[in-house]
């Protein structure tokens, strides 16, 4: 087929002079392209979702993942599929001197070899975010283990497959020259967050990141941060160091009634082990000057922009880019991943054939983004009599590996999360993201906070032990309550519920009965030691610059269509957003389009960095009514439940208030206040008026020319942007920063220029944390003396997350996160350097992932605190549940055998070493 006729269905955006068409698999646009559908209409029973909208496709083995797609599945592509693999270095302390493919012989020789010289000649380079040397040129020392040096392209699968068998694990392929030692480079970033509070938690701070500023530095001495010299009267950095020095002196020479505890903790480098290995499939159509790319990504907008920029700078002369993001799973490893760009390169050198670059698990281990290894030195001063914590000092170092990626931002989040549920009058948290020859690290689930929070919770038990206090009692005495300031000096938004979680844990039978249960278990199970541990954390969701677009449309017969910039990454985002429509429209959306990136209905403009922008710059830019601080967020940072839902419901609310409700009022013949209206069984009623089915209201709204569609852009920097618009002759203030409307049956949309905008101040960036979700987990373990194994017998989790969109999805997320936390506490580990995954020999045979038998699959229980009100928003909870069980297990081991481990994972070998 020509493709062109159908492509007229698609909408475009222009990036870097290249028209970009983003057509997610599973979208309406893709269905129009290939006549296939992956999303079913939401099945609803009594207002609840019966099953995931992507469920049938997934449970029947449908082509859901990018990995499933071959050229033959793309009807407008040539059908002959070519395949590519990457050659990678396995040493990073010597010069790379080329490669030798002689072992392939004539039969298996690749049809095309792409090296750094090709990229240089043709003007291909990574987007700036990923750094230099997309393929390492000969004569340079690799920046990191596993760095790619060449792509080999084979025009058929069989030769690709057998050639790979000969190349993999073969040390003769890559040639090396002189030993230079690893590259020594400055850290990817460093920052410091100092706070000295007032006399009480309610008093103003003497100094804090929010009141003054965080301290970010860019100067280093021998690759270590060169912090400013302390000065009370100096600039803000020098002032921060003055107060940091004072805290240090107080902890070094504490008052007589203080206990000061100093501990070193370490967490491991890990792989997120998303089961779909990284992959891409692309076709460069030279005749039409088009490039088509099927990719798994958590951030399609980033890939669209990056790929378009990369192509625009090349000598390919491309006019159009077609991007097909698919459902995927990454746990952060497919957010800002370099893989799509390697897929693009492979396609560009396909000689007219579609090229698939699909890693196997060994390659995924060797090239996929990793979890940062963390080292933490914590010092806590606590009043012996009251048990109240007085000061917290932390020196946090993450190992970000060979490319910067998000290491700087992630490590700052780690730092600003470390104080967790506790109120400290004084804090000094320094954090450095180191560069190294380890693999590059990405936004692995938890985004740095997992590591620092787990350490904090292990330390809380240690402090309690030193004081002779019940560990939960110590937590209760120090818990951050509503209105108290966090370690940055910001007051977290909303009711803080950690105290309730702690109280519930303290009353749970696993905690109250732990002494008796220990005695009984140990007596009944000779050779095993029983223990109960607890951890409780709160963690932010979102990243301080959350934004998305959502479009809600009603057809004349009441069909609800939702389009959203959010991407489905397996967590149920699509199902959750469908359900989110019900609050204003009475039932979930019928038709979904996720990962939408083309928005002709609402053409917004953006510029600048929303995280680092000066207030003056924001004020100036905001005068343009089409300007917004950022376009659309990736699916990450547990952002769908709260942030994506806000966009969906803001659009649905406009349709309700300016379309459905006026239609109902016209039928009822009497004015009704919005708050009096209720949806019952898909019909709108109020004050005893006739229930009106959605289809009737939609039909009426269409006939009367009322609002039948709303597209919104929303932005949140720890508070929502708001703007005023003129609708139906009245000025209304909405929690959005851009809006367009469709009326009646009109096909055209009208963009409403905002009359005033109220963007969150840039000062909010200093807070780093605004919204929290809290979770606590009690875990019951036994240590097997003969093997050193830790058996997870049971666990109970207490979560607060507002109103749940789909309770079954929340429950599934919790259970999955608990399994992941168990893996990181007890099993998952790999060396950072030469013996690690960069050598290409790592797989699940030596990287153990928890199985059903490891997670107390039949015993585990959980409870979710009732929401504070019907209107409390849903809160992000996808990552947070991983963390407390990690600390709980370590604390439980201490209860069982009396030894406190401070380095994860706690493997049988380490336990046996302790047990002798």
């Amino acid at each position: 087929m020509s493709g062109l006729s159908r492509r007229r269905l698609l909408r475009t955006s222009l990036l870097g002079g290249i028209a970009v068409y983003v057509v997610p698999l599973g979208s309406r646009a893709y269905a129009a392209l290939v006549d296939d559908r992956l999303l079913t209409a939401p099945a609803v029973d009594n207002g609840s979702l019966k099953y995931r909208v992507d469920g049938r496709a997934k449970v029947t083995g449908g082509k859901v993942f990018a990995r499933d797609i071959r050229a033959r599945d793309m009807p407008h592509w040539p059908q002959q599929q070519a395949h590519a693999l990457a050659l990678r270095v396995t040493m990073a302390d010597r010069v790379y001197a080329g490669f030798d493919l002689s072992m392939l012989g004539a039969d298996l020789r690749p049809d095309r070899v792409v090296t750094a010289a090709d990229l240089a000649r043709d003007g291909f380079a990574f987007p700036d975010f990923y750094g230099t040397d997309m393929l390492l040129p000969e004569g340079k020392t690799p920046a990191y283990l596993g760095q790619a040096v060449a792509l080999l392209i084979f025009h058929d699968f069989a030769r690709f497959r057998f050639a790979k068998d000969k190349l993999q694990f073969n040390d003769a392929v890559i040639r090396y020259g002189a030993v230079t030692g690893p590259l020594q480079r400055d850290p990817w970033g460093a920052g410091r967050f100092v706070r000295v509070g007032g006399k009480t938690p309610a008093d103003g701070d003497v100094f804090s990141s929010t009141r003054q500023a965080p301290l970010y530095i860019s100067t280093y001495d021998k690759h270590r941060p060169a912090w400013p010299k302390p000065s009370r009267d100096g600039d803000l950095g020098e002032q921060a160091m003055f107060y940091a020095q004072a805290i240090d002196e107080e902890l070094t020479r504490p008052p007589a009634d203080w206990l000061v505890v100093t501990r070193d903790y370490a967490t491991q480098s890990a792989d997120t082990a998303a089961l779909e290995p990284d992959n891409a499939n692309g076709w460069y159509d030279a005749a039409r000057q088009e490039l088509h790319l099927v990719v798994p990504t958590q951030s399609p907008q980033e890939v669209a922009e990056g790929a378009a920029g990369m192509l625009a700078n090349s000598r390919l002369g491309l006019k159009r880019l077609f991007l097909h993001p698919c459902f995927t799973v990454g746990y952060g490893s497919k957010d800002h991943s370099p893989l799509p760009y390697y897929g693009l390169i492979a396609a560009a050198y396909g000689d007219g054939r579609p090229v698939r670059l699909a890693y196997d698990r060994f390659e995924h281990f060797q090239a996929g983004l990793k979890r940062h290894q963390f080292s933490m030195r914590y010092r806590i001063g606590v009043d012996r009599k009251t048990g109240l914590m007085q000061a917290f000092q932390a020196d946090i170092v993450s190992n970000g590996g060979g490319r910067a990626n998000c290491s700087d931002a992630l490590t700052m989040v780690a730092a600003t999360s470390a104080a967790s549920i506790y109120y400290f009058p004084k804090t000094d948290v320094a954090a450095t993201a180191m560069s190294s020859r380890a693999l590059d690290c990405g936004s692995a689930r938890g985004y740095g906070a997992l590591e620092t929070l787990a350490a904090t919770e292990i330390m809380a038990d240690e402090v309690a032990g030193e004081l002779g206090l019940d560990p939960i009692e110590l937590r209760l005495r120090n818990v951050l309550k509503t209105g108290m300031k966090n370690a940055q000096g910001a007051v977290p938004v909303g009711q803080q519920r950690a105290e309730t979680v702690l109280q519930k844990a303290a009353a749970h039978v696993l905690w109250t009965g732990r002494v008796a249960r220990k005695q009984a278990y140990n007596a009944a199970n000779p050779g095993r030691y029983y223990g109960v541990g607890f951890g409780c954390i709160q963690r932010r969701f979102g990243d301080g610059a959350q934004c998305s677009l959502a479009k809600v449309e009603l057809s004349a017969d009441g069909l609800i269509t939702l389009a959203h910039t959010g991407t489905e990454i397996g967590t149920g985002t699509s199902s959750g957003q469908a359900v989110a429509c019900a609050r204003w429209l009475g039932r979930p959306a019928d038709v979904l389009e996720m990962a939408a990136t083309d928005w002709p209905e609402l053409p917004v403009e953006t510029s600048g960095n929303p995280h680092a922008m000066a207030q003056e710059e924001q004020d100036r830019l905001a005068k343009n009514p089409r300007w917004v601080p950022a376009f659309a967020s990736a699916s990450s940072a547990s952002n769908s439940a709260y942030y994506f839902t806000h966009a969906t419901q803001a659009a649905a609310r406009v349709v309700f208030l300016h379309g459905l409700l006026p239609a109902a009022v016209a039928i009822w013949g009497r004015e009704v206040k919005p708050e009096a209206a209720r949806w019952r069984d898909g019909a709108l009623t109020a004050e005893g008026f006739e229930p009106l089915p959605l289809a009737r209201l939609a039909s009426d709204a269409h006939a009367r020319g009322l609002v039948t569609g709303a597209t919104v852009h929303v932005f949140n920097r720890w508070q929502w942007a708001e703007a005023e618009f003129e609708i139906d002759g009245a000025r209304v203030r909405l929690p959005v920063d851009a809006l367009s409307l469709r009326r009646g049956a009109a096909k055209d949309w009208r963009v409403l220029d905002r009359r005033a905008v109220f963007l969150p101040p840039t000062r909010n960036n200093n807070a780093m944390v605004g919204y929290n979700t809290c979770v606590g987990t009690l875990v019951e373990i036994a240590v097997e003396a003969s093997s050193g194994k830790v058996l997870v017998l049971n666990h109970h989790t207490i979560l607060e997350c507002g109103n749940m969109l789909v309770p079954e999805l929340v429950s599934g997320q919790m259970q999955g996160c608990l399994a992941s936390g168990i893996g990181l506490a007890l099993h998952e580990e790999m060396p950072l350097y030469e013996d690690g995954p960069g050598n290409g020999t790592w797989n699940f045979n030596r990287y153990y992932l928890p199985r059903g038998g490891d997670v107390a699959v039949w015993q585990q229980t959980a409870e979710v605190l009732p929401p504070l009100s019907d209107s409390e928003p849903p809160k992000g909870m996808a990552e947070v549940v991983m963390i407390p069980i990690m600390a709980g297990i370590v604390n439980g081991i201490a209860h069982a055998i009396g030894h406190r481990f401070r380095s994860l994972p706690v493997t049988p070998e380490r336990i046996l070493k302790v047990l002798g």
Partner: protein
Amino acid sequence: MSLPMRKVTLTVNGKRHDPLDVPEGMMMIDVLHEMLGLTGSRLGCGIGICHACVVIWDKDDKTSEEVQTCITGVEFFDGKRIRTIEGIAETNDRGEVTLSPVQQAFLDKFSFQCGYCTPGFVNAATVLLERLKRSPVAKAEVEATVAAALEAHICRCTGYVRYYQAVRDVILATPGLTRDSA
């Protein structure tokens, strides 16, 4: 290209492929993916650990067994009958799909998130149900039986609980799969 080839006969989801020219030494998962277009058997590890790639081998003695296709050469399946995830649900002449009880239970229970491991769990549970049909298990042993049958399968999203519960509930609700006493 002069790669050695051989002819095999495969019956996949009731469809006979005879003969199929395959390169010698090719793994079954590659044949399914690249030659037959059946990509539902997922490649997770490629070394037989994660079990996302398992298919059901239907033996002549009416028993069935899971086989990891990522470590099993296509030659092993020569002359054999297998079911992949694409063949578990029934499709009638009008193209209407009826999910198997296991698939329906996984859907109803929200057992999976990303769904990458789901085909392996469906096939493992299907084999288990077929075994219990031949050899019922005591009700008190159902949970242990489910755990043993699914233990090898790796799930990274939902922590196993909803998979295990779904299979348990299907077994307990299906007449003939359990007995009251040991």
